[in-house]
């Protein structure tokens, strides 16, 4: 298929359709409203169900139901909306249900602002809802990668029976770039879901429930989840190392999403003008975090510079990766202020 020029949000919607998703429940919020807008237009052409719920809380519980009957379901929102969904996502994780949720992050906390930010990192990777559960979190840095990761997210959700989050910032959602779409999944080829609550005629009923009043049963479910997360940690770490291949590095930058692109531009500039060796390490899976791959690149570097559109939420993970072996500096702006390549280059020259 030829490349088309598309806005990130619209491309995310189309990628979900390609992945076999025909069920969307959500509530509008800038800067991701173009996803529901696109799907509201596109779903009638492919036999999809689009519901604009009365709130994010309602939307996530519709996903709970949709996933429970074995459908591929999607919601997209932005920071405050994702907070509202936390309780529902916890229930969904507890019930081992596959959903895909997209957070096109805006500035926070509170109502914050509508401009790009990366200030939901800790929420996505360490916290979100209550209880012993994890989100598999993938962070694209281009519209093409957003498409590829959305397509894959549905498979990962089905494979591990777990919620998968694709997290981008406002730029990923609003930017247009050329994209090539993967083929349309044949709905008949999607994984069968023998556990789904699809009507019990002729078989034992399937029960989907997250309430375990007996402590042994609740304990057992948490450990069943943990076992699954251990497997995800083993198999699903993703990252990219940019310009890290020529011996010792003066600085290794660590950044994800759009920020990583800005860092690459800054790295190129400082390499060219100052003859300094600068590499960029980009985590693609934010959970599970690619600690080992980062540690391997960090060994080559004199120092590490973490750059984020937050006040430094990823720094702890970088510290865990290098375990005190290298000095770590941080540069960040947030609230919708996006560090420019020149800003980052200035930090590299310090």
């Amino acid at each position, binding site marked *: 298929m030829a490349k088309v020029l598309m806005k990130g949000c619209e491309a995310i919607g189309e990628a979900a359709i390609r992945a076999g998703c025909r069920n969307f429940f959500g509530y509008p919020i800038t800067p991701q409203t173009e996803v529901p807008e696109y799907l509201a237009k596109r779903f009638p052409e492919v036999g999809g169900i689009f519901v604009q719920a009365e709130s994010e809380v309602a939307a996530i519980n519709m996903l709970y139901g949709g996933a429970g009957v074995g459908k591929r379901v999607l919601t997209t929102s932005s920071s405050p909306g994702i907070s509202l969904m936390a309780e529902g996502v916890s229930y969904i994780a507890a019930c081992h249900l596959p959903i895909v949720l997209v957070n096109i992050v805006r500035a926070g906390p509170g109502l914050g602002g509508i401009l790009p930010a990366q200030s939901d990192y800790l929420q996505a990777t360490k916290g979100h809802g209550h209880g012993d559960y994890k989100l598999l979190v993938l962070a694209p840095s281009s519209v093409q990668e957003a498409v590829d990761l959305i397509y894959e997210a549905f498979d990962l959700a089905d494979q591990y029976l777990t919620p998968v989050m694709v997290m981008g910032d*406002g730029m990923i959602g609003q930017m247009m770039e050329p994209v090539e779409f993967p083929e349309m999944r044949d709905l008949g080829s999607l994984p069968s879901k023998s556990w789904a609550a699809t009507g019990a005629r002729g078989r034992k009923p399937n029960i989907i429930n997250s309430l375990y009043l007996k402590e042994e049963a609740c304990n057992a479910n948490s450990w069943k989840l943990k076992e699954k997360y251990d497997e995800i940690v083993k198999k699903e770490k993703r990252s990219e190392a940019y310009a890290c291949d020529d011996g010792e590095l003066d600085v290794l930058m660590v950044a994800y999403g759009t920020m990583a692109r800005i860092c690459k531009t*800054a790295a190129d500039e400082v390499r060219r003008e100052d003859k300094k060796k600068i590499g960029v390490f980009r985590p693609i899976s934010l959970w599970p975090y690619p600690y080992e791959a980062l540690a391997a690149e960090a060994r080559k570097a004199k120092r590490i510079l973490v750059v984020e559109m937050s006040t430094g939420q990823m720094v702890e993970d970088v510290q865990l990766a290098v375990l005190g072996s290298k000095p770590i500096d941080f540069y960040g702006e947030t609230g919708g202020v996006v560090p420019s390549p020149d800003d980052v280059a200035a930090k590299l020259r310090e």
Partner: protein
Amino acid sequence: MQTEVIMSGFGGQGLMMIGKLLAYAGLEEGKCVTWLPSYGPEMRGGTANCTVVVGDKPVGSPLITSPKAAVVMNQPSLEKFAPMLRKDGLLVVNSSMIPIKSDREDIRSFRIKANDVAAELGNRRSANLVMLGAYLGLDEVVSHETLLKAIDKSFEAKKQFLEGNRKAFMQGYERAKAGQSDE
């Protein structure tokens, strides 16, 4: 080679549209492109803008703070973006609406009365295409033939506006090629 251009004006002047046309044409020529719109509060300050990057290699930062070129259709846009231009950068000014000039002497300025040119052609709303034509006449980052194709494609569903927009674009292009800058 990479070119970055910011296109800016009031909401409704069609800056997002001409940015998209440039990005479409870049894609058509197999180049790497990004189009990034402003969607925040700055738009309320009179500078609805988009940044287009066209290059041979994958685009790093889609956010540009020192662009090679700026196409400005109102005064707040000139005031905001002229100081940000790179040395030897290009400033294309809609002099129908911008009486002031940039005081920078290290950039190239081209002034064109885009609203008047569009009005003379009988389609006031195509001033944005005049501006895009003028920009391309000064910096043919994609060929003007490819850009015309992008116009054809974009106006497929609104054929009644196609010819007017093509003409507006070519007027801007030819005047810029001939170096007919307003004083």
